[in-house]
């Protein structure tokens, strides 16, 4: 028995999807990718991605949602695959075949995007006309009874195609703001006919879909449905928890074998899957449904379950049947295999940054901050299944163990180059190691640093901490290739008085290595300032101002998170001193000037510099004659995702 199976006996025990046995309790959850052709055909890219998920060892692999109607009302994403006609079956069959090839069960998902559909149209369809809140989406048109009945039939026809294509099971998406959830929710369903008005009537449209599919596929074919356990739309008349339970039970009773339970809509104001939501915080909903539903119905859940410990315990305690995983397996499809082989520190860790999903509505392909090989699994140069050994191994000196340097080093080492990483600080990780001291889940950044350190060692690379690579040292070393990844740091020389005794650097503040007085002024309007402010708010006992020339701070921060951060800063009474230039730093604080007012003093006991400026340019001269590269923030100050990409793309080249 493999070590992971001993350690997590429940996750790796077989389970049942209806009457169908599955080899373990891990289900790769449906993920829209935008990888498919714009006319709905399945692409090689999508097949390659599904193959990767199957090879990773999950017991079940779910496809992305396929849209069921020829008019495209159900199509919410430009690269979504279609199932509204038999001509799409051969492409879909490729996916079913590749999943089966690797001994996993294949589940095809049907998804009519409803309120967020009609990506090529100028309208969407739904139960009622309830105006959009998010400006990106088109206004809904009310579906007639005929249209509803036709939609049910389209789902039934799609289920038959699903069987024909050879999938082991079918899944219906009823979550997040898509069509089924629009009928279910009192927020979006204001009908007074047979499809609205009471919870039972709001359940009718989804119930008919399930009943129709069950009749068409027969009693033995597994049917899964994804439903919302808590809409989190209380601020706009969404369902109560009781209404939700009543409705979900009706739908499940119509013939569902497995309920995948979720929380929240896209429109919900509450954090559901971001880092500030601790892992496992939604398991209580799975437990609630396990207790409420008949015994033969199994329950699956994803949503911030990134590691096997909590799911294993939940399964043991009868609170959960299947551990679903989306983002954690986007980041590393091999996650199940790595857990089985007790190589958890080799799992590429999802940072819950949500960059992946955020791109889908912009018509971009699914992307992953920590795994640039996403969408390129069968392209050898991206190294998803491993990087080929270099024909001529070289000696590589990497200066800096931040994200960019470590990522490049890991790939170079895997290719067989002799790699040494020089890091002047006592710990690896650069800015990321400082960021990992932040609150609300940011300690998970440390997983990424640990991953790199583990892989570097595994591939025979060396990491020299507390060792600053100087010009002379690089000369002496005579490495074949030099990678300068020295990052960025706040620059005191940029301001008059920047070398004063009350001035400290933002990164040092977050490392906890400097004293910070009560009143703090942070100079710099980017994400580093915001992180530092959040860190200080969490510590308590500080009043904070942020000073910068921008109109809006944090323009560079992940759009998925910035609104959350801003509201935390507002709640902590952080003063935003925007649109101004720093004239001078004194012992009283920071003197600023703006268009409106001349010299204004922002009082502070401690001034924190967050004006990130590239570091290490003096080394470039020294290595100009060599095969040398500059990557990461020392090339141009950007974010972690960019530094990682730089390191990866360079690694691909070495």
């Amino acid at each position: 028995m493999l070590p992971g199976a001993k350690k997590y006996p429940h996750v790796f025990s077989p389970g049942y999807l209806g009457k169908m046995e599955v080899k373990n309790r891990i289900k790769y959850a449906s993920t829209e990718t935008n990888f498919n052709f714009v006319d709905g055909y399945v692409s090689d890219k999508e097949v390659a991605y599904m193959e990767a998920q199957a090879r990773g060892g999950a017991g079940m692999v779910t496809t992305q949602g396929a849209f069921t109607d020829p008019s495209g009302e159900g199509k919410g994403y430009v690269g979504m695959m279609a199932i509204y006609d038999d001509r799409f079956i051969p492409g879909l069959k490729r996916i079913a075949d590749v999943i089966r090839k690797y001994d996993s069960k294949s589940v095809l998902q049907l998804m009519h995007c409803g309120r967020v559909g009609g990506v090529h149209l100028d309208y969407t369809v739904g139960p009622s006309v309830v105006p959009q809140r998010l400006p990106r989406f088109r206004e809904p048109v009310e579906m007639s009874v005929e249209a509803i009945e036709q939609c049910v039939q389209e789902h039934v026809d799609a289920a038959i195609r699903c069987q024909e294509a050879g999938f082991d099971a079918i899944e219906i998406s009823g979550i997040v703001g898509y069509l089924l959830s629009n009928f279910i929710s009192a927020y979006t369903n204001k009908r007074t006919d047979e499809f609205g008005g009471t919870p039972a009537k709001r359940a009718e449209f989804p119930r008919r879909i399930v009943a129709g599919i069950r009749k068409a596929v027969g009693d033995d074919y597994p049917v899964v449905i994804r439903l919302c356990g808590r809409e989190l739309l209380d601020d706009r008349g969404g369902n109560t928890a009781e209404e939700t339970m009543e409705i979900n039970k009706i739908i499940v009773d119509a013939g569902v074998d497995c309920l995948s339970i979720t929380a929240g809509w896209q429109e919900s104001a509450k954090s559901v899957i971001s880092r500030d939501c601790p892992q496992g915080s939604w398991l209580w909903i799975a437990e609630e449904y396990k207790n409420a539903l008949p015994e033969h119905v199994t329950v699956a859940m994803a949503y911030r379950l990134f590691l096997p410990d909590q799911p294993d315990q939940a399964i043991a305690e009868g609170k959960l049947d299947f551990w679903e995983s989306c983002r954690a397996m986007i980041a590393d499809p091999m996650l199940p295999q790595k857990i089985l082989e007790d190589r958890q520190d080799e799992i590429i860790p999802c940072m819950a940054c949500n960059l992946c999903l955020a791109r889908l509505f912009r018509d971009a392909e699914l992307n992953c901050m920590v795994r640039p090989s996403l969408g390129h699994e069968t392209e050898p140069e991206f190294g998803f299944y491993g990087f080929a050994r270099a024909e001529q191994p070289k000696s590589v000196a990497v200066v800096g163990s931040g994200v960019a340097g470590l990522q490049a080093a890991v790939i170079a080492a895997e290719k067989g180059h002799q790699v040494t990483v020089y890091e002047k600080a006592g710990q690896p990780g650069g800015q990321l190691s400082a960021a990992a001291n932040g609150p609300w889940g940011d300690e998970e950044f440390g997983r990424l640093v640990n991953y790199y350190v583990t892989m570097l060692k595994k591939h025979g690379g060396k990491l020299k901490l507390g060792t600053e690579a100087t010009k002379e040292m690089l000369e002496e070393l005579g490495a074949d290739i030099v990678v300068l990844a020295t990052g960025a740091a706040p620059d005191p020389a940029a301001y008059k008085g920047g070398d004063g005794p009350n001035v400290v650097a933002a990164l040092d503040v977050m490392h906890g290595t400097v004293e910070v007085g009560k009143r703090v002024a942070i100079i710099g309007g980017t994400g580093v300032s915001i992180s530092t402010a959040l860190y200080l708010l969490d510590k308590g006992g500080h009043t904070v101002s942020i000073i910068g020339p921008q109109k809006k701070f944090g323009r560079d921060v992940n759009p998925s998170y910035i609104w959350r951060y801003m509201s935390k800063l507002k709640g902590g009474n952080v003063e935003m001193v925007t649109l101004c230039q720093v004239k001078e730093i004194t012992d009283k604080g920071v003197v600023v000037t703006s268009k409106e007012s001349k010299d204004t003093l922002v009082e502070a006991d401690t001034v924190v510099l967050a004006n990130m400026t590239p570091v290490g340019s003096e080394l470039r001269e020294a290595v100009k004659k060599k095969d040398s590269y500059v990557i990461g923030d020392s090339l141009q100050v950007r974010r972690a995702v960019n530094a990682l990409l730089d390191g990866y793309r360079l690694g691909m080249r070495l």
Partner: protein
Amino acid sequence: MVPIIDIFKCDGCGVCVKLCPPQVIGLIKDKAAILVELCEECGICNDVCPINAIHFELPRKEPVAVHECYNNPR
């Protein structure tokens, strides 16, 4: 997928230059150009272009008229 800028359409307005998160779009001869190696493929430029001059999606798979003409050149 790094987005494609339609140079025949681009009017050099600079909105994408301003809003690109890692600031890797510039103007060359008044037309937007992306530093491809530094592009993080986020799609924001595609989203904000006021005249839809930036796009990326996989093309149509079904050939349209190609085989017809290929088989019977006009």
